[in-house]
């Protein structure tokens, strides 16, 4: 839950600047109809790389990993686990 709430807080406070109170786990984050624009995506990637000491590469940024808060949380947790092992 920790990673998820950290990412949620970052998006709510730093990117959406308080225009929303909470995010649903299956809400669309990126792509058409998503909450973030391209600058938002870049800031999110930078936040993930700095906060969790992971590398986000070309192949990672797709709907399967970045589509929703749930998927993003799973991606970060998996990546941390595999980087740590």
């Amino acid at each position, binding site marked *: 839950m920790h990673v998820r709430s950290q990412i949620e807080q970052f998006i709510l406070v730093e990117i959406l600047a308080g225009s929303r109170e909470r995010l649903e786990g299956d809400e669309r984050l990126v792509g058409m109809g998503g909450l973030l*624009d*391209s600058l938002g995506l870049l800031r999110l990637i930078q936040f993930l790389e700095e906060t969790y000491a992971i590398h986000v590469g*070309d192949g990672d940024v*797709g709907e399967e990993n970045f589509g929703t808060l749930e998927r993003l949380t799973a991606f970060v947790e998996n990546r941390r686990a595999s980087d740590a092992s």
Partner: protein
Amino acid sequence: MSHLLQNAAQLEPERPAVRYLDAEWTYGELESQSNRLARALQEAGVRKGDRVGLWLNKSLMSICGVYGIMKAGGVYVPLDPQAPVSRAAYIARDCGLRVVIADEAHARQVPAACKQGAPMRVVVCPEQELTEETLGWADGLVLGRSEILTMDSGSVETPTIESDLAYILYTSGSTGRPKGVMIAHRTCLTFIHWAVDTFGLRSEDRMTSMAPLHFDLSTFDVYATAKAAGTVVVVPERLASLPVKLADLWQEERITVTYMVPSILSLLVQYGRLESHDLSSLRLVLFAGEVFPLKYLRGLVKAVPGAQFFNLYGPTETNVCTYHRVRGEDLAEDAPSSLPIGRACENTEVFAVDETGKPITKPGVEGELWVRGPTVALGYWGDPEKTARSFRQNLFQDCFRDVAYGTGDIVKLADDGRTWLFLGRRDHMVKCRGYRIELGEVESVLYSHEAVKEAAVVAVPDDLVGNRLFGFVVLADNAGVAHGELVAFCRIHLPSYMVPEKIHILGELPKTSTGKVNRPELVGMVQTAMPGGHGPGPGTSGVGLV
């Protein structure tokens, strides 16, 4: 300019003119739809020279809207569909938007804009059945879909000539208010004719329409495509926040020509999985609006080896005025760090003037770039003073009236004596994702917050987005603000690309010996606080950044 569409509709009535997601209109359909819209606007009272707002998300209708307005004799004024209502209301007041074409989401914001002084009286909503009651707008008039469909679709007699205004694009203004750049039909047509000739555009071409209508890159997509009777593929908003989807669109739509700001192209190189796409149809990649970092340009050229690449340059006030075709030597490891902006477009002249007012003829000397020719705008709407400051009599012509525009961009000539190199700005204007941002405009919003005593906004250069904005404020005595409050305040008043990422509160702003805000020191504080920053920064008044 509406003749571009009319001619294409006669020549290629069955060819797809515009595509958006799975929908498309042929040239014949776009012509009929825009004729109906033009008649509806005329019935709503639009006369030659009237400004008409376009407040809608990208769609088939956004393209139809520009033609409908111009056919009615009006001047179109695109309102940023993502920007706060207060900004739309300001623009509506500034240029007197009485009639606005809107989609449902924005039509619903019209009553709020009117409460902020927008003089809007008629909303034309071509795709929905809306009424005054559904909008809760008792003193306005709403024309919905069925009313527009009853209009005659035959060609409209357009009362304008080429020196009339075609559109007004609002850009950031240093004094805190956006300024409206007035573009005449001839201004834009000169650029369009040049572009179609130079790039050999033809009816088989399929162009993206990436930039929103309030951004001048959009005029190439919409009008150069129409002149060539090609197909324009409207890129949905926010698609670029999943770069791989944008690459999918290039591939699936078999795009041949694309025009984007470098930051979006850089994003594609970095996160678009370009190597797993078939981009063999892409023959021409154009970019403008900011400096393209060479490392990403190299990546793009490698991913799309069959295409030609051009750097186009020109502020909104001049359309594109110089261009440079990317050559192998520009990308070499020992190449200069930035790409030239090139030489003047045909039928346009550019020159630079040094500090003493003399024209620059030798390589290496720095000066401000000036532009003259038919692509220069007519000035700023309703602001003769600002117009007079930037649009001036050509210093080197005293026999007849000849307006030249001073860009504020500092340039020099390359060693070949004819290629211009961009060096920077002489003021506080910066670019972020190609958008012009006057730091003074952001500062004036901060100053308007009651808790703020002093404010400064700085831009920190960034490879991927051009610049990142950071704010610094000193609070008024006894004032306090909640975490994130000032950023949220900026978001209410500014489009998102102008909102600082972070706003730091300081005890005082660092000053130079002449009492000005020491901006380099503020930039240094941000860079020091960033990961990978270089050691402890100079610090100011013992206040670190959090």
